[in-house]
Structures are given as C-alpha cells and as structure tokens.
C-alpha cells in the first residue's frame, strides 16, 4: 500500500511566540527573533544572545502538579501538539488512538532539569536530587506526555539524532502513514537547551556567534541557539479529503544518509546523497524543486559545505533555486530544528512567500546561491526540500509539495 500523505495540522512554539501563526508571521516578515539571553545569568557566557521562547508561563498550559513533572522541552512538545491536533480537527477515539503514532525528535532531553539537579549536588553539596529528575529529563518525556493527553496507544517514540532529530522523526512518521502502518502520525520535535551547563558546552565548541546568526554571509561567526517545538499532523490524503480537512501541504519524500566521516565536520558528499535520496523517494527530478529550506547554521563550515552539496545534488538547476536559512530568525533549535523548518517550508508553499535569510550582510563567494537575503520573496513554488545535517554525520531531507 502506498498512500499520499497530507499535513492537516501544525503547532509551533518558538522565539516568535507560542503559536504557529506567531512563527509564520515573524518568518514572513523576515524578522529575527534573536535577542539577549535571559534564562542564564548575564556574563556567564562568551555569547550573549539566543532565540528564547518569550514569556512562557507553564501554569497557563498545565496544572501546577503536571507542570512540575515536565521539563521545559516536554512542556513545549505538549503545547505545540495541542495546537497541531486542534488545528487538524481530529478527535481521537480509542480505536483511532491505537492506529496513531507519535514520533517527536529531541536531542538533549531535559538539560535544565539535569543542570538544576547537579547544581544542588555538586555546588550546594546536597546529598540528593529530586526523584522527578529521570522522568523529567528523559528525551521521550515530550512524546509520552502527548500520548497521555490524547490516549494515543500506537507506536510512540523519540528519535535523537542531534540536529537531524526532527527530520528523522517526521520522515519516519511520513513513511508509516504512507505504508498504512498507522492512520495518523503526530510528528515533529522539541528542545529547550538554554541552561547554563549545556550552553557552556556549546561555548567550548566555539561554534556560537557572539553577535547573531548570519547564514551564508561573508562575516558569519557561527550559529545562535534557540528553543521551541513544532508538531505536524500527518494523515492519508484520501482520509483528509473525505473528512473535509484543510490540507496545509503534502510530504512526498524523505531521504537519509550517513557521512561515516567525522563526528563534527560536515561532508558535502553525505549531504548531497541525502538530498538525492529524498528526490528519488519523491520520484522527482532535481529541477522540480523551487525552494530549499537550508540547514544553514551560520557556521563557517556548514554553509560552504551545504552550498557545495546543493550544487552537487541539483547540478545546473542549483542556480535557479531559492535557498534560505530560517535559523537566522528562529535560531538553531537542535532537536526541534527540522520541525520548525518544516513549518516554515509549509508556510512558504502555502502562502507563496519565501522566508528570507535574515541578518545577511554581504555574499560569501563560497556560498554563491540565491539565499534570499533579508527580504521575503513572493514565489509560487510547488515542491520544496528541507535539509537537516547532524553532528555525527547524520543527514535527513524532507520533500514537501504545495497543497493542490
């Protein structure tokens, strides 16, 4: 059985606000949500900025007892899933819950929960940590939380492949719906990495920009970390049409590859292979693609390598592609990155508007694609891809189609 897979719901919580319309409004305006960090003490880090979710009060979303059971990343997952499910109009019966999957990406799990616990242990010399530490910090806590809220009793799991987590999750969910293994999939990713201990580890890697994220610019100085979650509802096209659902867009292909090369250095060969695999899965020629939502981290290495990979996968058509990095606006949200970028890509197809690469200053000759600098671009595009390339050399590319 091979079925077409429609996206019928989206939820997102990001530095732009607590809903998908907030995210899309920001991206469509080409506005960057990168701001001074408030979640860690000032001066603790070499970099002062991040893409923080603003004004997040868990008690607006959860009972007090529930809130204390959930790390911030799991709270984000639940908030985004609720919006996605509500917007899809799906009501989960017991039977449908058994035929539904939840696959949510998460790279780090409950980093601030661990950080707090270990601070009490090592700094305050307390002899114990909270008994909720494990349940809060495990990377699947977000997926499990969503399963409880909606009685989803089918396959529920988390994929943790660093910055490709959400693309691997959505891709796997897409294949399970396409093959008929499940009827509905709730898929995406969430991450809340802005705790002092974890940010110190990023600082030591020397890949975080001291100013802002400027993908593909000659003076880019690194990535900017962000937090949030995005969730998509996937269902067979036939089912969506039969129930009169709004079709936001379609997922038509998914490609994966591994570099088998280096734990942190990217490889153009591996990245290009994932893009080609995605096109093959979608049964599309390279020239069918109009837009690439780039991995586009803003590091020196990624942007050059990704440019080379896009040129390799698309050949002469690369010159005609619109390529943008929305990480310049919502930050690099690690395990949520592919999910926020799927939401951005679906918005671009649906609205005929390409979100730009913000904070762009001047072109780097080694990144010589049309990167849609600073200003959103009106363009009717039928097919788009969204790239995610993770530390560890794990690449995942989703292929999207505009709703008919």
């Amino acid at each position, binding site marked *: 059985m091979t079925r077409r897979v429609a996206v019928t719901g989206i939820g997102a919580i990001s530095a732009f606000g607590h809903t998908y319309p907030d995210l899309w409004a920001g991206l469509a305006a080409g506005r960057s949500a990168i701001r001074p960090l408030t979640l860690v003490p000032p001066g603790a880090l*070499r970099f002062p900025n991040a893409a923080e979710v603003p004004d997040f009060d868990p008690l607006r979303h959860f009972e007090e007892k529930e809130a204390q059971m959930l790390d911030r990343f799991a709270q984000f997952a639940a908030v985004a899933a609720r919006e996605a499910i509500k917007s899809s109009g799906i009501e989960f019966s017991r039977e449908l819950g058994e035929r539904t999957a939840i696959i949510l990406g998460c790279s780090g799990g409950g980093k601030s929960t661990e950080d707090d616990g270990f601070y009490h242990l090592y700094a305050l010399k307390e002899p114990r940590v909270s008994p909720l530490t494990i349940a809060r910090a495990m990377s699947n806590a977000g997926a499990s939380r969503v399963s409880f809220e909606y009685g989803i009793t089918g396959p529920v799991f988390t994929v943790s492949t660093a910055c490709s987590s959400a693309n691997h999750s959505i891709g796997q969910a897409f294949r399970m719906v396409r093959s008929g293994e499940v009827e509905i999939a709730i898929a995406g990713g969430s991450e809340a990495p802005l705790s002092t201990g974890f940010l110190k580890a990023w600082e030591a890697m020397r890949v975080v920009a001291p100013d802002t994220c400027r993908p593909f610019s000659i003076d880019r100085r690194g990535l900017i970390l962000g937090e949030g979650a995005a969730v998509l509802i996937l269902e067979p096209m036939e089912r969506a049409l039969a129930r009169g659902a709004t079709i936001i867009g379609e997922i038509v292909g998914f490609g994966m590859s591994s570099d088998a090369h*280096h734990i942190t*250095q990217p490889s153009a060969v591996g990245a290009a292979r994932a893009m080609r695999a995605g096109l093959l899965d979608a049964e599309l020629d390279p020239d069918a693609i109009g837009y690439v939502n780039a991995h586009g981290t803003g590091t020196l290495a990624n942007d050059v390598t990704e440019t080379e990979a896009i040129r390799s996968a698309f050949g002469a058509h690369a010159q005609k592609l619109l390529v943008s990095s929305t990480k310049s606006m919502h930050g690099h949200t690690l395990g949520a990155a592919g999910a926020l970028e799927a939401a951005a890509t679906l918005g671009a197809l649906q609205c005929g508007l390409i979100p730009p690469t913000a904070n762009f200053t001047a072109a780097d000759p080694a990144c010589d694609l049309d990167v849609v600098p600073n200003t959103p671009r009106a363009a009717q595009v039928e097919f788009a891809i969204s790239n995610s390339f993770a530390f560890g050399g794990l690449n995942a590319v989703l292929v999207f189609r505009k709703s008919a």
Partner: protein
Amino acid sequence: MSEDLISRVTGVIAKTQKIPPETVTIDKSFEELNIDSLDGINILFALEGEFDVDIPDDAARGIRTVREMVEGIEKLLAAKSQAAESPQ
C-alpha cells in the same frame, strides 16, 4: 619566544593529541600533526587551563601551526601580565 613557553605549549598539544612529545615541534603545521577542527578546540581548552588565559574565538580561528599557537599564547600572557601590573 622562550624555550620554556614552547615546551609547555608543545607538551599540551602532545598530551591532548596522545602523541609523543618529540613529534610536536615548533615548525609543524596542524595538518602534519593530524589536528582537525575538533582537536583544535580541545587543544585551546587545554591551553586555557595550562596558562590560565581566555582565548577568544576570533583570535583562535586562523591558527594553523604550532608556531602561531605559541605566538598567540605569548601575546595573551603579555596582555595578562600588563593587566596585572596596571593600577585598577
């Protein structure tokens, strides 16, 4: 550039890279020593500990040889001792 400084820097590089100290000489490039980008930041981290200095990202970015690394540390140590001598 003192012999003591050179030997401390090359010693840190050798220890971090798990290679014999005599292989790390002042005229070697990182490429010759098989030092990649991740090894490089690991060495910077170890040097910050060894010399109690803060090596800014921008200063570290262009370093490709042992000599450049020693020169960089020398500059940071000079700035540190100047800061310690000047009145607050």
